[in-house]
């Protein structure tokens, strides 16, 4: 179980890192296609609020998991 937890730690960290360019590229693509106020507000909320929370928490959580910090919680 401990090995699986650590292995998934890599997955969470990679997900956290991967989400940053993915969201930014999607935002740029959609705003370029339709630069409406609605689009700007939506993507600002996603980039300023949601993305940093997801990225920071997944990366940090993944590192902790990889280091075995959650092994004691079995």
């Amino acid at each position, binding site marked *: 179980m401990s090995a699986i937890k650590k292995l998934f730690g890599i997955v969470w960290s990679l*997900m956290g890192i991967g989400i940053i360019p993915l969201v930014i590229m999607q935002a740029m693509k959609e705003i370029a296609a339709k630069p409406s106020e609605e689009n700007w507000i939506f993507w600002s*909320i996603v980039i300023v609020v*949601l993305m940093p929370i997801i990225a920071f*928490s997944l990366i940090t959580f993944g590192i902790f998991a990889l280091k075995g910090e959650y092994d004691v919680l079995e």
Partner: protein
Amino acid sequence: MAQNVTNVSQTEEVSSTRRVIAASSVGTLIEWYDFYIFGTLAKIISEQFFPKDNPTAALLATLATFAAGFVIRPFGALFFGRLGDLIGRKYTFLVTLVIMGGSTFAIGLVPGYKTIGFFAPAIVFALRLLQGLALGGEYGGAATYVAEHSPAGHRGFWTSFIQTTATLGLFLALGVILIVRQTLGVETFSDWGWRIPFILSSLLVGVSIFIRMRMSESPMFVKMKKEGKTSANPLAESFKKKDNLKMVLIALLGATAGQGVVWYTGQFYALSFLQNACNVEFVQSNLIISIALLIGTPFFIVFGALSDKIGRKYIMMAGMLIAVIAYKPIYQAMYDEATLKTKVEIVDKTTVETKEAVKGTDTITTKITKKSYEDGTTYKETVKTTIPLDPVKKAELAAADKLKPETKKEVTLPSNSYYKMIGFVLIQVIFVTMVYGPIAAFLVEIFPTRIRYTSMSLPYHIGNGVFGGLVPLISTRLVEATRPAPGLPPADPLAGLMYPILIASVSFVIGMLYISNKTNNMDVE
């Protein structure tokens, strides 16, 4: 004799715990009510304070609806959580109640945009932020306060009463709005009647403050303070110390994020789906949600109590997993129940009525088409076209493609479909009760008393405010992306479910892998 003394002592303890639960729950319920009436009346508030022709006001409208919901709530959690760990639970959540009640009452009194101009949206925006701040501080305080009074082994049961308050608050908000709207009529309600639910809040808050003033401080906090063991800096201790930070992260990613999206999907998105994708009429759609909420609410207590027996983890995870699997079939069934495509129209009963009236500088043409179907469904379509009397202005608007008519579609379901819809929403409310019923006890038990208020409040409000609060915005956006052209129906009305399904799936995997099921027996020390 000794037995009698023990019995009297136990009876007093139970009675005291009941008073604690009642005082905490009533206040929290009122705070949720206050918070939800703004969201439920967003359309009317927008018309009163945030006119569409003023872009800054329109921007404030969007921010007021979302910002207070997700950005400010976590700040409230940090601010009041810190206070609660420094000076005590009782006074802190008394302050949040006063702030929430005061801002709600004030929103009901703010003059409209037509009277005081830009000050109106600015004041309402500021008051909405105060509401979000207060809500961020309230829940953690109430849950902590009740948990610290509860006997070990019954914490899931006692805190589940706090868990009922968010749903009951929404139910109360919908109920009060429906009653006031039906009593005054739609026009009067839109004109000034919408202020009544806000003003009514002051009475409820007054009663709640009176009850809370008479309560004593949490015994665990008092003991800790006497021993000089309170935290000097709860924020730093909660988020800078690795041992606490890792628990904050697991609480967020493995529990509250998934719980937040299930909560918002089962209640708010269900209402939005009924009204926008299924076009179910306003009163009927609100009644469907209200009845499902009322029937489902006792299950918060059922699952809270069950979590004392079998652990918090498996109930919460089962709720997330079943929700992930069942959402698409449930929403497909809801859509099929209301769609007119499969219903047989009684052509003889179709009526078309056209009215034309001059209002101010505009001619307003209203075309109302009413249709009946063999299964008892009725459909009403109102197409309203506003054309300026001034030919120059008319030509300008036509050139800018702004003379498009407003179309309102209303489907009224027959009894059979109506009850089925209640059933579909009720199933989702049961998922909500599974993930939400045990979560207060779970959060309370993974953090130590000295930083509990701060530590548990932040993951709760990020999970619910950010991950959950964004469900309506992101899901609506995902559905809109499938619309082939403006005015045409979306190709995939269920596309909005992708967001809650994805978040709940990740949360489920993290929860199953990393959360322990043994926390239910931990002592709150």
